[in-house]
């Protein structure tokens, strides 16, 4: 192996050599710089690969020929190798990125850059604290110089402030080092400690060193001096400052802390405060780089927290810390580099990235990496971290980390929403190829790191799962026409279903049919879109991949990974809607909140065991079980949009594209239901202080069913109406599931099927109407029945089926419902369900009346029927509903038998003469026949009597002697249920929305308040840094020095 000291030597040597290069020969100087950085990277890479392959041992390099502590020694271990690679590679890429700036400033700037990178690798490798100090000083000076590469005038001030505060810190470090030497008699890190927590003698020494190192990490709130650098420096340098400097400084702190575990809580405390505080502050940022700065600080805070937990993490420490670090470094470097592509500094200006889809993909990747979503390293790290912390009884820390992460996700996804939805500036000059190339390399590195971490993980690698790979393949297929991609997508879904069919149990089968076959049917509607439809298929397929994997998941990890994948996919899918930016954001915020609850729940349940079988949920210890239940239930209920957690749904579903609405409503909601199903299957009877937790679910389900329906009544927007209706329907399903008896579960399953069919059908029908009328406001339509007969039929059938009127399939659901509640323990919530049934009738009638009946408007006179491909799936659904109404047994019978394995009592008897339950009977064929015969007879009778009726037009109505003035004034549709609002309106005041708004408001207010610390004055910042030390000292010593 090449000696690692060469890394430092090359950096230093090249910097020295640059001095000999002619000032004008910038090309040579730059080539030299690049070569040096490349060589440094390659050496580090060599070591890293050797460690990965297991061919290398940790090597100590002695510099002066003496063993430590008599001379400085460097160490090259796996962590050092990886970090050196990170630092050197970042430097290398940044150098290419900053080519223009470096050319402008000449060889000196290049030399400073080389020194900075060299010093950073030095910090990583050295084992000597005084050496550490030297390298820090080098970095401080180099930073001060490199900041000037920026064209931003504020950079000068920023660099100066940085220098002032950095010197204060350096002095502190130096004093600390002196004390250490005094106490230990050695400057070698390996000779320090273990030092007990204390503030005299060795304790004080270590305190000073640590505090200095922590301050180097820019902890909240003593970090104003560093943030200006992020904001004003050249993005290429900011990338180094964030990715490389931060990592190196952290590693330095880690090295010192490793000697004295007693000091770890200090790191944890500072880390977590920084993580949450910086994230809250970032919420209010409009400047992209400053936001990235806060985010960097937050990520370093998280890492410091993890460092503080190394006593607990044990062997996983490197994996976890490394995962978070790598994700942070790559993503942050990538984002800083991307910020150089964007001309202006407002977050909304990132909309310019839309000029290149790959950049948007890169942006999405980096955001996902930062938030810790699969398949990136942060995901695996977070998973393991949560598990280990939970098992170590540090649930509070998990909670804090997850809250911080949620806030972080909030602003990052909001930013992403700006980029994809806001208006792109006019007259955009184009991106620099050079810079874009760097971003692409980073993107590649991101995905590679994801694969590596997946591979290293004890759990399956997300990137080696077939559905995920299939979905990702669509990224490559993007240049193809949409219709070909659609065909492939359908083939993929159906193919996967056929392939997996033998392995499904009946429950999985039903969900698989809905997700895969049902997904394929909805995809038929997507044939309606022409062109390439960029950015539609990858997220859609990602969602389906997540769903397909979810229902087969055997371990909690696969389950959770699938959950995150489908969440991510559906977020991008929802975001595509024209007006959906805020709704997609609230969707992802709630979904991630829910996902984190699930993560915490799984981690609590697993109690350290990995992999954790889903079935083992049944064996969770008595003490933990209720908490596991609550966490998981809350998580799943964010997806089913149960009341209280529902506010994301109406907007997300209503503003999505026409074929996306049925996907996210008809199919995606079922994921939550499936989760609840699995939960109840394994932990159904969990008690909490003597109360069966399913009681709460029954109530929540009933209230959702009721209020969802009530809110649907008052919507003017057709898709919103359907969206609220979904809340109601999911409430029903939750209710019946939580009844915890045989028929309840059967009913829930019927809801799963029925809701998929009629909600998809209705969304497509309304979407088809929207495609023609360009409005979703119902009162602006009317009288479309003759123009759109097929759409009308599907809405009509959907309504009959949904409202439970015989003879269509909805009635079967009602019948099972009555039989199910006969054996239920609870009676009061049933009242709400009784009330919500007819309420469903109200909003559905409003839907069909306001759109298809009543008065036709002038501008709609020449409308055509909805597009063909939107009608195809609708007609399939119509046929299915009719068939399902007559022969429900085809599907339900097997499931009924399957449910008997959980609830042997109370099943149905399937006979040729109908279906018989314990209490009643139901003969779908007979019902259909009788009604059909009567209907036809009466119809023929009427036809005989009234066959010669004169067809009249819309204004031929008995209008009290007058004639209607205009269709708009004659169509009764707006505020259709006014009397109902008078009587029941108080129930639908937006209490929940107000609550969640208040939560976000408080966060924002806090951020606003905290911003007052950041005066922009260098002296203040220096005082803050000192104040931080004093406060830390006082708290640490308990006020008694």
């Amino acid at each position, binding site marked *: 192996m090449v000696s690692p000291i060469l890394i430092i030597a090359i950096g230093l040597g090249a910097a020295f050599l640059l001095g000999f290069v002619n000032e004008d020969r910038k090309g040579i100087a730059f080539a030299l710089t690049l070569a040096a950085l490349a060589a440094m990277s390659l050496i580090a890479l060599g070591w890293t690969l050797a460690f990965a392959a297991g061919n290398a041992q940790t090597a100590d390099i002695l510099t002066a020929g003496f063993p430590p502590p008599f001379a400085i020694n460097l160490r090259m271990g796996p962590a050092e190798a990886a970090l050196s690679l990170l630092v050197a590679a970042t430097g290398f890429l940044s150098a290419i990125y900053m080519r223009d700036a470096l050319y402008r400033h000449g060889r000196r700037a290049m030399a400073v850059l080389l020194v900075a990178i060299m010093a950073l690798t030095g910090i990583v490798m050295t084992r000597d604290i005084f050496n550490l100090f030297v390298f820090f000083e080098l970095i401080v000076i180099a930073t001060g110089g490199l900041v000037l590469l920026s064209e931003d005038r504020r950079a000068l001030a920023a660099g100066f402030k940085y220098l002032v505060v950095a010197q204060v810190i350096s002095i502190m470090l130096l004093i600390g080092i002196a004390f250490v030497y005094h106490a230990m008699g050695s400057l070698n890190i390996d000779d320090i400690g273990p030092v007990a927590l204390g503030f005299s003698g060795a304790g004080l020494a270590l305190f000073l060193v640590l505090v200095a190192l922590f301050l180097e990490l820019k902890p909240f709130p003593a970090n104003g001096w560093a943030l200006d650098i992020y904001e004003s420096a050249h993005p290429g340098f900011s990338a180094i400052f964030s990715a490389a400097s931060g990592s190196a400084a952290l590693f330095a702190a880690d090295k010192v802390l490793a000697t004295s575990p007693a000091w770890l809580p200090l790191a944890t405390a500072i880390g977590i405060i920084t993580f949450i505080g910086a994230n809250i502050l970032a919420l209010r940022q409009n400047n992209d780089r400053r936001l990235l700065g806060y985010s960097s600080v937050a990520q370093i805070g998280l890492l410091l927290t993890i460092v503080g937990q190394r006593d607990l993490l044990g062997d996983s420490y490197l994996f976890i810390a490394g995962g978070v670090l790598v994700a942070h470094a790559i993503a942050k470097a990538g984002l800083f580099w991307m910020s150089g592509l964007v001309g202006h500094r407002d977050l909304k200006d990132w909309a310019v990235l839309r000029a290149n889809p790959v950049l948007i993909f890169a942006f999405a990747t980096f955001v996902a990496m930062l938030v810790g979503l699969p398949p990136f390293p942060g995901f695996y790290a977070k998973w393991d971290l949560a598990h280990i912390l939970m098992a170590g009884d540090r649930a509070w820390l998990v909670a804090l980390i997850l809250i911080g992460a949620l806030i972080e996700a909030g602003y990052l996804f909001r930013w992403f929403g700006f980029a994809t939805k806001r208006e792109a500036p006019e007259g955009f000059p184009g991106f620099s190829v050079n810079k874009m190339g760097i971003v692409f390399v980073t993107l590649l590195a991101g995905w590679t790191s994801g694969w590596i971490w997946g591979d290293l993980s004890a759990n399956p690698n997300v990137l080696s799962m077939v559905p995920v790979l299939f979905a990702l393949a669509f990224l490559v297929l993007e240049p193809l026409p949409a219709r070909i991609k659609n065909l492939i997508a359908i083939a993929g879904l159906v193919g996967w279903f056929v392939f997996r069919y033998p392995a499904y149990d009946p429950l999985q089968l039903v969900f698989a049919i809905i997700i895969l076959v049902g997904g394929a049917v909805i995809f038929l509607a997507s044939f309606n879109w022409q062109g390439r439809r960029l950015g539609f298929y990858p997220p859609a397929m990602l969602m389906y991949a997540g769903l397909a994997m979810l229902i087969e998941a055997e371990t909690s990890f696969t389950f959770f990974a699938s959950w995150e994948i489908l969440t991510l996919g559906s977020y991008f899918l929802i975001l595509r809607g024209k007006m959906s930016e805020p709704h997609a954001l609230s969707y992802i915020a709630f979904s991630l909140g829910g996902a984190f609850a699930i993560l915490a729940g799984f981690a609590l349940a697993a109690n350290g065991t990995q992999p954790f079988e889903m079935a083992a949920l049944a064996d969770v210890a008595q003490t933990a079980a209720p908490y596991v239940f609550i966490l998981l239930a809350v998580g799943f209920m964010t997806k089913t949009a149960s009341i209280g957690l529902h506010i994301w749904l109406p907007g997300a579903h209503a503003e999505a594209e026409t074929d996306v609405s049925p996907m996210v409503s008809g199919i995606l909601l079922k994921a939550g239901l499936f989760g609840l199903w699995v939960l109840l299957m394994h932990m159904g009877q969990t008690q909490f202080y003597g109360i069966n937790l399913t009681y709460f679910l029954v109530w929540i389900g009933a209230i959702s069913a009721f209020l969802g329906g009530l809110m649907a009544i008052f919507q003017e927007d057709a898709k919103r109406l359907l969206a609220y209706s979904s809340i109601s329907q999911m409430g029903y399903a939750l209710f019946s599931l939580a009844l915890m008896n045989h028929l309840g579960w059967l009913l829930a399953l019927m809801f799963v099927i029925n809701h998929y069919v009629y909600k998809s059908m209705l969304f497509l029908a309304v979407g088809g109407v929207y495609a023609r009328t360009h409005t979703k406001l119902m009162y602006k339509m009317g009288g479309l*029945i003759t123009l759109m007969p097929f759409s009308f039929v599907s809405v009509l059938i959907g309504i009959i089926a949904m*409202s439970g*009127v*015989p003879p269509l399939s909805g*009635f079967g659901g*009602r*019948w099972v419902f*009555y*039989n199910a*509640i*006969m054996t239920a323990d609870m*009676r*009061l919530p*049933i*009242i709400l369900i*009784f*009330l919500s049934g*007819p*309420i469903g*009738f109200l909003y559905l*009638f409003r839907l*069909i*009346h306001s759109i298809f*009946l*009543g008065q036709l408007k002038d501008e709609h006179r020449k409308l055509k029927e909805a597009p063909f491909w939107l009608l195809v799936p609708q007609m399939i659904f119509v046929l299915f509903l009719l068939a399902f109404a007559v022969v429900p047994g085809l599907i339900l019978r097997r499931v009924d038998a399957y449910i008997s394995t959980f609830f042997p009592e109370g099943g149905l008897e399937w006979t040729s*003469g109908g279906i018989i*339950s314990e*209490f*009643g*009977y*139901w*003969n779908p*064929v*007979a*019902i259909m026949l*009788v009604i059909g015969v009567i*209907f036809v007879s*009466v119809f023929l009778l*009427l036809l005989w*009597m009234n066959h*010669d*009726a*004169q*067809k*009249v037009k819309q204004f*031929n*109505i*008995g*209008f009290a002697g007058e004639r209607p003035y205009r269709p708009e004034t*004659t*169509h*009764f549709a707006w505020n*259709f*249920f*006014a*009397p*109902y609002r*008078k*009587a*029941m309106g108080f129930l639908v005041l937006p209490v929940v929305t107000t609550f969640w708004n208040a939560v976000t408001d408080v966060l924002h207010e806090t951020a606003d308040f905290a911003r007052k610390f950041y005066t922009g004055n260098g002296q203040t910042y220096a005082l803050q840094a000192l104040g931080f030390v004093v406060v830390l000292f006082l708290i640490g010593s308990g006020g008694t020095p």
Partner: protein
Amino acid sequence: MSIDWPRIGYAALTLFIVINYGMIMTALVRKIGARVSGRYGIRIYQNYIDLVKNIALRSKITHGVMYYLGPVFRLTGGVGLLLFVPTIYGSAMWSNFSFAGDLVLALYFVFFGTLGMALGAAESGHPYSAIGITRGLSQVTVAELPLALAVFAISLQYQTLNITDIVAAQQGGIFNWTLFTNPVATLAALFAFVGTMMRSPFDVVIAPQEIPIGPPTEYHSSYLALMQTNRVLFPIAKTVIYMNLFFGGATNWFEFAIKVFAIYMISVLVGVVHPRFRVEQSITFFLKWGLPVGVLAILLV
């Protein structure tokens, strides 16, 4: 599946009897009302004349397919409801098509005609029709609530959803009727009964003074004839359900006639002494009075 011709014959006969009974009974009820106010009132066979007159109209119009089908839905709803419920207890044949489904079928089939009628009336494009429908639908959602609760209560009481079984359990004396064994549920159901019979005080749906006659504003000729037929048939079909569930059912046609008339008169008596509610008032009324009684019923079982 072989066709059971005798059963179809009996069904047709049931239909015939009930329609004629309904024609006479509703006329009688009006006549009684007239006599109370000192008039002679309509002739007892007036309903038939009106029916023929409407069928005999020469010119007719149609507003479209759903308009045309509205009355068909309506009458199918009425006929179906009648035939899905056993009419005479103890007779296999007079039970008609009740083999197709139990109490739940009857409860939900009530909406079939309502839905069809609403769709048909709405296609006429008449705003008064639409207003009438919103009133009707708004009111019925809460008016049916006490019934749903009462039905739940008595099906828990008898541990069955089979109407025949429920009637069977009430045989053997008047005190076996649900009316006496479960008076609270009966009271709750009667709230719903009065609320859904389209009589004052709950007839704002068809308020002639403000929205001519609500949903059927545009209907005439044979459409109206079908609806008139349903108007005499449907309340009886509904009353039969109440009779079976709460008043011991009927073992022969005579008992049927008496009981249906008596139960029907409840809504009439309430109607003649109460002025009309606005929709939100009746919603509030049912929530304030009907709902608590219903809740009490399911809590007491």
